[in-house]
């Protein structure tokens, strides 16, 4: 079953080399006029308990891949995109490092812009991924995205 869905997960941080390579891979698609890229970077937030040094990501991987597939299909239906890519880290990503990389390409810029933003919003709201903020001195706090997270049975 796993094979049916494109993998989006990368162990550890998303490197600058990986991002550059992804951009370079699109230079042969000569109908592309604009790329929109979002990068999520881990902040060294100050908490009451101390500074965040890293986020450790876990996911319900199979469900996340199925949901990412569904989101991608929706977005290709909605916008005239040429490409759309989603990459998310798993495991420990230190502050200052990249944990989310969303990349859309289209002939004219508007579609790439709108699709990228919508992908990021949907990823944050709908992908079963959890970030555990690691705080100096072996403490931690569970991150929560600001969203309408309804309770049990989604009511």
């Amino acid at each position, binding site marked *: 079953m796993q094979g049916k869905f494109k993998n989006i997960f990368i162990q550890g941080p998303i490197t600058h080399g990986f991002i550059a390579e992804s951009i370079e891979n699109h230079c042969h698609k000569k109908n592309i006029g604009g790329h929109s890229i979002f990068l999520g970077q881990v902040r060294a937030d100050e908490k009451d308990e101390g500074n965040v040094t890293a986020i450790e990501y876990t996911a319900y991987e199979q*469900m996340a891949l199925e949901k990412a597939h569904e989101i991608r299909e929706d977005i290709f239906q909605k916008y005239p995109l040429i490409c759309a890519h989603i990459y998310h880290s798993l495991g420990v990503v230190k502050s200052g490092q990249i944990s989310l990389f969303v990349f859309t390409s289209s002939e004219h810029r508007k579609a790439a812009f709108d699709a990228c933003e919508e992908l990021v919003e949907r990823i944050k709201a709908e992908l079963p991924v959890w970030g555990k903020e690691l705080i100096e001195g072996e403490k931690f706090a569970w991150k929560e995205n600001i969203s309408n997270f309804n309770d049990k049975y989604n009511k």
Partner: protein
Amino acid sequence: MITVKVFGRLTDYTIKNEFNLTGVKDTDQLLKTLFNKYPMLEGLKFKVSVDRKIINENTALHNGSEVAILPPFSGG
């Protein structure tokens, strides 16, 4: 047999992240069993998925069903 997966902050309150249950016929019954075992979970926010789809109401379970208890997402 039903597989139950627990994620995120909920794993702070359970001994295992994944375990099996038998003799529960729907998600209401499963949650009751879970709350008996881990009373702390009852006060926490979460959604429930069956076979990787989030459910909106009490849902029948079958042998092989995969249930997950999902606290608020925090990816990205």
